[in-house]
């Protein structure tokens, strides 16, 4: 099938040409349209235009055959297919966007909706970093990966909706393609059938020419006779391809099941004349790229039609032929992707091969496609694979939060006599699966108890690593750390080393030493990057703990920097890594008072983890509740708090004080400051009893922010135990607050801002304002008030202290709290219930408050407190 001239696309090509000019607001164009409308053709024209303008051009195709293979669409750009997924992706990106002499690059991605997730990530990164101009085609109405959809939804690529040709353009194309005029009747019939769809028109003309029903007569083309033809493009494509000779059909089908297929395999498997014939007919296209020349189908529809029509037995046989060729030690095209080989093998008529499936499962896990890794490991086990496949499947099931299936597998596995290190790995996985996806800490503990009783030598060190995790998350940091210190880490592979690093990070953080243990954590992360056991996910979880320890200790610039680095690396990686990077970034944003970012990213994370049972939604739900409450959205915070409680997970004991404190912030947002103070004290008490010194500091700081003036003594003690800037500032703050020392409070506010906790800095300034007022120092009070107002406004926060400072009314804290609740519409009975006081006491407070400010009714009191609220300009 010869190429037809491009017709009716001048304006569309101009849009694309514009994207190739320097300094464009968009990183390229996405061409959207229905099947056969001419998207691929337009993209080819764009590629030719770019090449003319001196650009290096790359062509990537999304195909049904490669869609299930992580990085399948970009495989030809990968030198090696193993190792850390980010490094792998980075190498592919570098190769796709590299050019001789630094010439700008155009990357064309045809049928981007069929890209696998990891290739979508590559594309997304190329666009985001402006590493090349991108032209992508997508079929309208068909779902595409999120990373692809985001390209136009987030405004990175201009979207060009390609429309069918007009009647006139269709006629002109016919005239031009047939190299002569067409009768009016013929043109009209063709138009009615094809309605400007170029591929349809092309297929129809070819078919009718071959059937000799399209004939020249008197200088015009005529369509004669009756035609047996279906009304659909797909049927027409099917008819056309089905009518090709057997050997050519075999070529098309071979390409369809493994597209893009290296020419070397096709040549080894098919008749050379048939390959040439298929190319001549436009049914396949050959791209000469390095290291392998690859073959693709002439149009995506050809593949769809053949995969639907060819019959499973035939397709299985063809996949088997390719897989056998690919699996030979002297395979003609290198490197062979183990995942691609296994996916072909799995759907072929070949005898299942446990080694092929196990290697592929490991590779898929490393490329973050855990679902595929699980399927391949299951296939490997069914084919008789050994321990490697079983352990990998157990790990995959746990990572997918499929706890019950994981326990079925790991329970049986650990009951068998196993060699080391497989035995300790199986034991740890089982305990891990019981602890997180199944939420059974007691059972998890029993598994480790039992194993420790049986273990000796290096095995006991490996099992102890998980005991340390259990103790750390159960909020026993001192015991956990003691165990960490007894373990010989040189005996540990990547996964147990990461577990040990997690336990150590949590314990050291809770005990108040956030900067210790970092060298070991970094070493474990490096081990994970090269690990064959898919320790990548655990490495991201370690970053969660590291960030949290830094935040708790008040090392906020370090926390922000770590979170930012993680977000940049993982925020568009498909799957769990993306969710965790959002959560980590949200936690850091909350700590420094960037509440909009915190609410957005933590909200995304909680939503993304909602259907998992491993406690992630509870863990990050705590921070999400606090972010909403601090931003003053009491209604949303109350709702999120209820959701957090529904998601409560029994393994997250070490975050109990945070959970209580989040509830305290919700109470504060609802105007119930004394309840908030009580909850913060309860949080501090919990942390104190567990020896979580650093978390006790955070809880006491919360209590200070809610007006507690009795924390100075304990904070002074904690300052002797805990490292990091937070404890020292909190201790100074507590002392200054109890001494009503405005100058000291103002200094604390400045130092808190330097530390990065801007909301706390605002609250300390608000406390300074009140202290200055109480001593009739109006000038400094104004300065402190302006400072509090600036910080609180910058953060978009609402806090009780800032509210009080903005209300220069001669009220006590209790009277102010009651006035705020009246302004929220609560009755005296409701206020009494909220504050656990009697109605008579509430009435007494209201009476005294009204007397102090010279008004007569509770309604006037509510009006007054609203008038002086922050943000209305009265402060």
């Amino acid at each position, binding site marked *: 099938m010869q190429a037809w001239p491009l017709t*009716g696309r*001048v*304006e*569309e090509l*101009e*849009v694309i040409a514009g994207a190739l000019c320097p300094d464009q607001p968009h990183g390229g164009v996405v061409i*959207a349209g229905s099947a056969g409308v001419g998207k691929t053709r337009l993209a080819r024209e764009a590629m030719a235009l770019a090449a003319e303008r001196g650009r290096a051009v790359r062509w990537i195709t999304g195909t049904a055959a490669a869609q299930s293979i992580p990085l399948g669409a970009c495989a030809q750009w990968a030198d090696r297919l193993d190792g850390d997924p980010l490094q792998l992706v980075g190498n592919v990106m570098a190769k796709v966007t590299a050019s001789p002499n630094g010439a700008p690059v155009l990357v064309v991605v045809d049928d981007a909706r069929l890209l696998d997730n990891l290739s979508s990530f590559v594309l997304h990164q190329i666009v985001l970093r402006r590493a090349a101009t991108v032209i992508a085609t997508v079929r*309208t*109405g068909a779902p595409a990966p999120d990373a692809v959809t985001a390209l*136009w*939804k987030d*405004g990175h690529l*201009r*979207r*060009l*909706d390609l*429309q*069918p*040709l*007009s*009647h*006139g*353009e269709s006629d002109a194309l016919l005239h031009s393609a047939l190299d002569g005029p067409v009768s009016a009747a013929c043109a009209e019939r063709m138009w009615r059938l094809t309605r*400007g769809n170029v591929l349809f028109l092309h297929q129809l003309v070819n078919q009718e020419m071959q059937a000799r029903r399209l004939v020249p007569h008197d200088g015009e083309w005529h369509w004669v006779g009756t035609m047996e033809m279906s009304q659909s493009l797909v049927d027409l494509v099917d008819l056309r391809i089905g009518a090709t000779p057997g050997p050519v059909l075999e070529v098309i089908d071979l390409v369809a099941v493994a597209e893009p297929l290296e020419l070397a395999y096709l040549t080894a498997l098919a008749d050379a004349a048939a390959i040439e014939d298929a190319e001549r007919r436009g049914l396949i296209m050959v791209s000469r790229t390095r290291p392998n020349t690859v073959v693709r189908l002439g149009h995506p529809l050809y593949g769809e039609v053949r995969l639907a029509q060819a019959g499973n037995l035939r397709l299985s046989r063809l996949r088997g032929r390719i897989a056998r060729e690919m699996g030979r030690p002297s395979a003609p095209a290198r490197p062979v992707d183990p995942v691609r080989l296994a996916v072909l093998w799995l759907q072929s008529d070949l005898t299942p091969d446990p080694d092929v499936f196990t290697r592929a499962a490991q590779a898929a896990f490393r490329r973050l496609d855990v679902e595929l890794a699980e399927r391949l490991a299951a296939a490997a086990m069914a084919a008789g694979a050994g321990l490697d496949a079983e352990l990998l499947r157990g790990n995959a099931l746990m990572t997918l939060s499929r706890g019950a299936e994981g326990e079925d597998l790991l329970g049986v596995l650990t009951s068998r006599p196993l060699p080391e290190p497989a035995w300790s790995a199986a034991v740890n996985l089982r305990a891990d699966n019981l602890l997180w996806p199944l939420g059974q800490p007691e059972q998890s503990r029993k598994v480790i108890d039992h194993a420790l009783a049986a273990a000796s030598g290096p095995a006991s060190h490996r099992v102890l690593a998980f005991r340390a995790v259990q103790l750390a998350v159960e909020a026993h940091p001192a015991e956990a750390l003691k165990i960490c210190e007894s373990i010989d880490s040189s005996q540990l592979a990547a996964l147990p080393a990461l577990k040990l690093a997690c336990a150590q990070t949590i314990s050291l953080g809770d005990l108040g030493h956030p900067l210790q243990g970092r060298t070991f954590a970094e070493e474990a992360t490096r081990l994970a990057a090269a690990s064959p056991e898919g320790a990548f996910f655990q490495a991201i979880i370690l970053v969660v703990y590291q960030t949290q320890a830094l935040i708790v200790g008040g090392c906020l610039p370090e926390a922000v920097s770590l979170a930012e680095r993680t977000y940049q690396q993982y925020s568009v990686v498909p799957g769990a890594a993306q969710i965790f990077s959002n959560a980590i970034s949200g936690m850091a944003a909350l700590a420094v008072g960037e509440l909009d970012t915190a609410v957005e990213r933590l909200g995304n994370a909680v939503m993304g983890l909602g259907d998992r049972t491993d406690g992630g939604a509870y863990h990050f739900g705590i921070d999400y509740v606090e972010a909403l409450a601090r931003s003053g959205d009491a209604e949303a915070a109350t709702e999120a708090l209820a959701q957090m409680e529904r998601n409560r997970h029994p393994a997250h004991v070490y975050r109990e004080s945070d959970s209580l404190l989040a509830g305290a912030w919700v109470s504060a947002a609802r105007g119930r400051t004394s309840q908030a103070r009580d909850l913060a004290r309860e949080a501090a008490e919990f942390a104190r009893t567990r020896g979580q010194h650093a978390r006790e500091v955070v809880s006491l700081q919360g209590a200070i922010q809610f007006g507690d003036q009795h924390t100075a003594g304990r904070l002074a003690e904690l300052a002797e135990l805990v490292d990091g800037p937070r404890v020292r500032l909190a201790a100074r703050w507590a002392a200054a607050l109890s001494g009503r020392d405005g100058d000291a409070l103002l200094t604390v506010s400045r130092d808190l801002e330097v530390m990065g906790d801007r909301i706390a800095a605002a609250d300390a300034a608000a406390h300074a304002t009140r202290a200055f007022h109480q001593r009739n120092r109006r000038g400094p009070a104004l300065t402190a008030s302006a400072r509090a107002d600036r910080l609180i406004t910058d953060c978009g926060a609402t806090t009780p202290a800032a509210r009080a400072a903005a209300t220069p009314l001669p009220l006590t804290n209790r009277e102010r709290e009651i006035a705020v609740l009246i302004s929220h519409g609560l009755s005296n009975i409701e206020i009494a219930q909220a504050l656990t006081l009697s109605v008579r006491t509430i009435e007494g407070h209201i009476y005294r408050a009204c007397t102090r400010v010279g008004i007569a009714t509770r309604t006037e009191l509510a009006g007054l407190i609203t008038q002086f609220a922050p943000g209305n300009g009265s402060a």
Partner: protein
Amino acid sequence: MAHDVDAYEAALRRLPEAHSLALRLRSAGVADEVVCEYLHIETEGLETLLRVAEQKLHAELHKR
């Protein structure tokens, strides 16, 4: 004047159906979302579609 109107209408009719419809709906003041619904396109594509439509119309009007 009538001649101009006829020429404009004739040019509109020669455009691909979606482009012609987009221009007619736009000049009738129909909201963007509704235009996109009629054309079965996503809102992010409307601006470019209208730009292409206007260029095609301009080309039709100036065809000799």
